[in-house]
């Protein structure tokens, strides 16, 4: 398979070729020095399609590693997979949003911080089918230096844009709708759900080995892909990520039916930020908001 490094992938102020070679160089050192046993990174896809996750264990395979603006996968999901967990310590190429997932996994005791060497790569927004994902509009971690990563590669200077992202505009649309209209919108979205559980399998924070959707005694969520089961499943999945979702939006990308999970995640993440001044995956010391409390928490919705 030919690597596509010759592809001209200059970006406004990121030279992806430099980043790519720096990643390869760093991966080689880490593997040779036995500091890590596996490097999880991006490789060129089958028949030159979009990049895919690759797992390098041999130092002289590092040239399979690529990096460009189409590397949208959140690789930290693999840190929760049994077969990869057994190969600790790992190195992992992470953009800002992915690095936040790694922090989230450490906070929830799934991995130990010193088992993972995070290669934080500057990112000016990833592209899917030609257009930059809406999550990148207001990304505050384009340069992952402010997150606890081992090494930062590339130093992008763009300040995160404060203008409302397309997601925020769409949220305004939704909030303007009446309760019945909003219910119809979400009912139609969830009715299309085919329960392939792609959203669950791709989310780094869905690491339960026995998901609640598989629990049958009692069955809280009906497994039949009808409106009732789908509504309950999507509601519970989103609720289980309150205060934990880092808005990498992989779930809405993975959803084959195009359900607008990003709207739901973004709304809940904003509510957590407004109510508890908490942003997921930014700080190793902070516990997820629902596992702590504050005496002066808001309770004006309680009679």
């Amino acid at each position, binding site marked *: 398979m030919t690597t596509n490094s010759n592809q001209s992938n200059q970006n406004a102020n990121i030279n992806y070729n430099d980043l790519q070679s720096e990643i390869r160089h760093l991966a080689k050192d880490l593997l040779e020095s036995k500091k890590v046993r596996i490097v999880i990174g991006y490789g060129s896809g089958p028949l030159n399609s979009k990049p895919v996750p690759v797992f390098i264990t041999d130092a002289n395979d590092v040239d399979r590693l690529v990096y460009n603006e189409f590397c949208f996968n959140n690789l930290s999901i693999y840190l929760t997979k049994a077969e990869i967990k057994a190969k600790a310590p790992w190195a992992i190429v992470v953009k800002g949003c992915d690095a936040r997932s790694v922090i989230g996994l450490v906070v929830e005791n799934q991995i130990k911080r010193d088992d993972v060497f995070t290669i934080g790569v500057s990112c000016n927004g990833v592209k899917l089918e030609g257009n930059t994902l809406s999550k990148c509009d207001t990304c505050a971690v384009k340069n992952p230096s402010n997150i606890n990563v081992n090494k930062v590669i590339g130093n992008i200077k763009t300040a995160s844009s404060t203008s409302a992202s397309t997601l925020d505009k769409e949220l305004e649309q939704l909030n303007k709708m009446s309760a019945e209209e909003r219910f119809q919108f979400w009912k139609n979205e969830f009715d299309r759900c085919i329960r392939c559980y792609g959203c669950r399998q791709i989310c780094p924070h869905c690491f339960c080995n026995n998901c609640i959707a598989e629990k049958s005694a009692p069955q809280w969520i009906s497994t*039949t892909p009808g409106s009732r089961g789908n509504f309950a499943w999507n509601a519970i999945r989103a609720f289980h990520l309150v205060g934990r979702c880092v808005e990498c939006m992989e779930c809405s990308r993975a959803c084959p039916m195009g359900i607008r999970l990003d709207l739901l995640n973004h709304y809940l993440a904003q509510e957590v930020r407004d109510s508890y001044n908490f942003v997921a995956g930014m700080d190793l010391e902070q516990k997820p908001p629902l596992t702590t409390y504050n005496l002066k928490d808001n309770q004006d919705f309680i009679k």
Partner: protein
Amino acid sequence: MKNYQLAAKDLETFFERILSSNLKLVAPVSTTQHIANLKSKTQILFKEIPTKEDIKKIISDTYTDMSAKEVFFPQSEPVIEYTHKKGGAVDIKDVEPTLKETVLFGSRPCDAFGFSLLEKLFSWDYDDPFFLKRRDKTTVISMGCTSPLESCFCTSVGLSPMSNIGSDILFTPVDNGERYLIEVVTPRGEKLIETINGAVTSTTTRQSIFTDGNTLVQNKNILEGKVKEQMKRKEDFKDISDILKDKFDDSQLESETYRCLGCGVCSMVCPTCHCFDIVDEGESSHGYRMKNWDSCSFALFTKHGGGHNPRDLQFKRCRQRYMHKLHYYREKFADALCVGCGRCVRACPVNLDIYSVVYNLKKAYANKKKDNKDNDNV
């Protein structure tokens, strides 16, 4: 069987005739949501076309995200309904699927070939009423491909963009879309033509006035050759089954599928996947026994009651997917369960591509055989 032809401009009247003869019409439509201009991902799915006004929504020559198997093998359907009567007796009755004579328009030759595989599968030893009754009530009109997608590889599984296996009628757009050659493949197709007769003139009478002299069929064969030529993916899957025979413990399959996340997207979109799960829904007094799609990618698929799971790691489930589709099934039924539609390639969130897996397996097998040959004669 006879061939007919239909002018492209008469396609709408063709649909109107179907509706007016009290037939349910299912065809591909775009399902983009437009509530308060909130756009969700544009998707093309098979939907029922209830009224004449909806006919203009039909996209006749397109590639749908989900296969049409849902028309015969719905994602979820009740098989039994139970009710606890007073005094403790339990009333159990089968749920008869509400059936109506249906016309499925717009499936691709690869989909149609998938229906034929499923039909054989659902009737090889036990006749599954749910599938067969629905299949008997449906006339499948497929649309031949003139511009296959990059990820398509139907020729690799011995099909062609215009093969008619599994369809009742095959439309093929000829004269660059001016006219459709209509090949009637099965009696069911013939019966549909009669019921909506008058809309189609028999080719024999029209044939003579065809300007460039080839019969439409001849015209189609030329077109078919050209389209086959354009296809990017041409690797032949013929002997993949023998290669896979001793690949169970081979580490190559593991490394090829290491990135699989175990979501069930590939099974849900695949025209030939047919596994289903039975679960009771409702409460103690009344409820249904539901039959829902399932996927071997899920860990729960092979999880034992005690918690042990023979396929504990994800690559074992992927191996099962490839082995089943390309080897085990072929060993028993001489058919591969892959029709080359490329839907799983397009839908996979980590871009696992069955074609490239086979491509790599064959290349490795070829290299190994070459090495053995070198060693023999060295």
